[in-house]
């Protein structure tokens, strides 16, 4: 049987999330006969059109339903199961964003199959590497090849597939019964004009060493100067300096910018798990023994409140 892959699109507020194109990159490495992208939205035509431009995509299918206005696993999973069965796909992939983490296991359980979390390398259509213990070890796992393979893709391990494609778009009608036991109430979104953490080329982060919410302004200002996204350690989020969606690490966001600069972050293994794929890691910390220096490409021991203004000046 030749493989055909269904990639579940992650999108919000009418815009396709770049993680979808990263999942397509991973899918391409499995040498499938085709890669289809599934868009589940209330009005998915525009999102589907965006997905159709991703290089390597064979077809985009979208099923519009008012119940899909807000992505909820309980509502989406039965539709994905229906799409997977109607299209006889061998693989169903999603990104390892919180959207995919919440959703894909529900899909796998409904299909009655095991799931692979966080594919970071593809050996074959059924054999993959995935991180365990916060990335301190890598398991090579082989999934059964006689059942549908459900997996999430570790987006930091894959570049976004290029644009320029021109896949066909097809509206799909899905035969799925949707539950009413789960209702969306609201989404408190932290508005920011800065580059998105998970796709930014440069990220500047602050930790407990920044000291307060007010002090974080120096981190934001420097990030804005160099056009960087802003992240934080768990300690900074727990202390209330910044909102939760800025947390980088094992249980926060896993990122892969070309340049990662962190200030006042000691480097707990849970934080390091989130930055291992960064191109260049720069660490500034006043403690020369901080574990962050073990992974930094460039380290500087010193006071961030003295060094950031100097950096500001140097980059003009």
């Amino acid at each position, binding site marked *: 049987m030749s493989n055909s892959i269904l990639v579940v699109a992650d999108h919000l507020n009418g815009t396709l999330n770049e993680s979808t194109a990263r999942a397509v990159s991973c899918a391409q490495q499995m040498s499938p006969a085709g890669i289809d992208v599934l868009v589940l939205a209330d009005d998915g035509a525009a999102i589907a059109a965006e997905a159709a431009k991703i290089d390597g995509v064979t077809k985009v299918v979208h099923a519009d339903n008012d119940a899909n206005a807000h992505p909820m*696993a*309980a509502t989406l*999973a039965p539709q994905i199961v229906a799409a997977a069965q109607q299209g006889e796909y061998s693989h169903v992939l999603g990104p390892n964003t*919180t959207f995919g*983490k*919440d959703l894909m*296991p*529900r899909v*796998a*359980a409904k299909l009655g*199959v*095991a*799931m*692979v*979390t966080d594919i970071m390398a593809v050996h074959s259509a059924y054999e993959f590497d995935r991180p365990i*213990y*916060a990335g*301190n*070890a*890598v*398991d*090579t*796992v*082989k*999934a*059964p090849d006689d059942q549908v393979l459900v997996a999430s893709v570790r987006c930091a391990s894959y570049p976004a597939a290029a644009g320029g494609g021109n896949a066909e778009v097809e509206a799909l009608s899905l035969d799925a019964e949707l*539950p009413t*036991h*789960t*209702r*969306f*109430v*609201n*989404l*408190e*979104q*932290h508005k920011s004009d800065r580059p998105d953490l998970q796709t930014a080329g*440069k990220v500047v982060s602050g930790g407990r060493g920044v000291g307060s919410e007010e002090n974080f302004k120096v981190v934001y200002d420097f990030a804005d100067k*160099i056009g960087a996204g802003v992240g934080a350690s*768990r300690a900074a989020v*727990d202390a209330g300096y910044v*909102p*939760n*969606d800025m947390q980088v690490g*094992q*249980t926060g966001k896993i990122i892969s910018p070309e*340049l990662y600069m962190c200030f006042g972050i000691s480097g707990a293994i*849970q934080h390091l798990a989130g930055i*291992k794929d960064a191109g*260049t890691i720069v660490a500034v910390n006043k403690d020369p023994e901080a574990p962050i*220096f073990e*992974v*930094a*490409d*460039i*380290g*500087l021991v010193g006071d961030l409140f003295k060094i950031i203004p*100097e950096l500001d000046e*140097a*980059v003009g």
Partner: protein
Amino acid sequence: MKILVSIKRAIDYNVRIQIKGDGSGVVTDGVKHSINPFDEIAIEQAIRWKQAGDADEVVAVTIGGDAAAEQLRTALAFGCDRAIHVKTDDAVQPLTAARVFEALAKKEEPKVFLMGKQAIDDDANQTGQMTSALLEWPQATFASEVELSSDTAKVTREIDAGLETLDVDLPAVITTDLRLNEPRYLKLPDIMKAKKKPIEDMSVDDLGVTAAARLETVKTAPPPTREAGVMVESTEELVSKLKEKGLL
């Protein structure tokens, strides 16, 4: 209201793990184990509900070998009323764990099944979602706040875009994120009292569960290493290095 809380015995989060020389896994013998930290948050939450009068019984459940009884005792010391130990010496993967939890939920009929969002050993982040799927219950994952009513729960979830709130009918599976609460330190009298609380042993077969198809682990290896970095002495030197690399 009855609350079921699942816990997993895992290598303590402070341990620097070691990979076996033959690639057959990580070293677990003689290594400190604890309750998976996310599960500890789940226990704490259930106990807080009990102390606030929202819950009247809290039952801790685990799947694992004899040694996992130690973690159940800890859960009882937190204030769980009783515990169920589903004994197996096999490494249990998420779908099989979910089948066991499905069977336990049908037997115990809790209003809320609380679980950690992921275990810090396999980092799979699957079992809660799979359990709710098998039960056809609502799921609210990555919870940072839960407002419990008699038939519904309002759950604030930590997601990439910010904080999402869902309203779910009960019974439901709720998985905990880091900021839901800070687990208490256990006091000696509570630890002593826990020794007298009941732990019920059963097997996977007793529950009528068949194991799901497994992922086979071919090998376990260290992660790719990064090249050693350099220390610079001044901001100037840092800036010139970054300019050299074309990063500034």
